[in-house]
């Protein structure tokens, strides 16, 4: 994820404005590395809502929750 959390583009000087996007080492995101280190990674998205802006801040719930991961597993939607 170098474009998100490390230096990008790879051949650019890291001190140039805009090149550093996060603290990670450029090699940390290599899929073999990250998948070996975190085979049980997952994320839960829940209470997904969409609405016009309303003064009370409330919005109708359109979708329940979705859990994704771990790697190569299926996902569950509720």
């Amino acid at each position, binding site marked *: *994820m*170098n*474009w*998100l*959390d490390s230096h990008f583009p790879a051949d650019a000087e890291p001190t*140039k*404005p*805009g*090149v*550093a*996007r*996060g*603290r*990670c080492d*450029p090699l940390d*995101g*290599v*899929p*073999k590395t*990250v*998948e070996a280190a975190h085979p049980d*990674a*997952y*994320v839960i*998205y829940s*209470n*997904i809502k969409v609405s*016009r*802006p309303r003064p009370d801040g409330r919005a109708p719930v359109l*979708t329940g929750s*979705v859990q*994704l*991961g771990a*790697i190569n597993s299926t*996902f569950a*939607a509720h």
Partner: protein
Amino acid sequence: MAEDGGLSKFPTNKAGAKYGTGYCDSQCPRDIKFINGEANVGSWGGSPNDPNSGFGSFGACCAEMDIWEANHDATAYTPHPCKVQGPTRCENPADCGVGDARYQGLCDKDGCDFNAFRMGNKDFYGTGKAVDSSKPFTIVTQFVTADGTDTGALVQINRFYVQNGKVIPNSVTSVAGIDAVNHISDSFCQQQKTAFGDTNHFASVGGLKAMGGSLKNMVLVLSIWDDQYVDEPLPPVERESARLLTTAPYQQ
């Protein structure tokens, strides 16, 4: 993408969204195996690091609004508009934005990203930071139109966080040449591209107004993924085709 994955528009598509057809995004991905009801077999070259992937001569383009691209340590939200509205098959390297033609393509592959760290606040998002990524939180994204109506031109995208009952405004930019704002607008994008020396293909394909037009009809995609093509040390021509998305197909 079309809600039915292209089933009704393309008679040769007998599968539909339930079986994964119809996906598209602003990278105009060429690893999609069926586009517009046809196999993407022309010039299929295979992938050096995945026997099940490869690149055909067609790509599946459409505008993309990245509401949340993040991990434990970094986050960005990014509009990626296109010159075209709705799912569009690109059929040549220029339209697909391949390699040196990246900034001729139908879609804005770079996007106009707001990443707090990149925009100068290194203590905003992460474990123990202003938004503590080690604990649950809510993200809020607001799409503001010029006249406040649903049909008005999109002019601004705001971001807030809520954690422990507290509203946390997005971080404010701190980069020379960029106004101190905490939202995305066409002027923010122009200033950011200039300050960082990036090509403003975002503006070339229509900027926020084009993004707003596409936002009227979109499918929500949720995924967990890593960057096979971007992060592995590969020749640029392979890296170009960006992310391998393990996308959750749209469920009817």
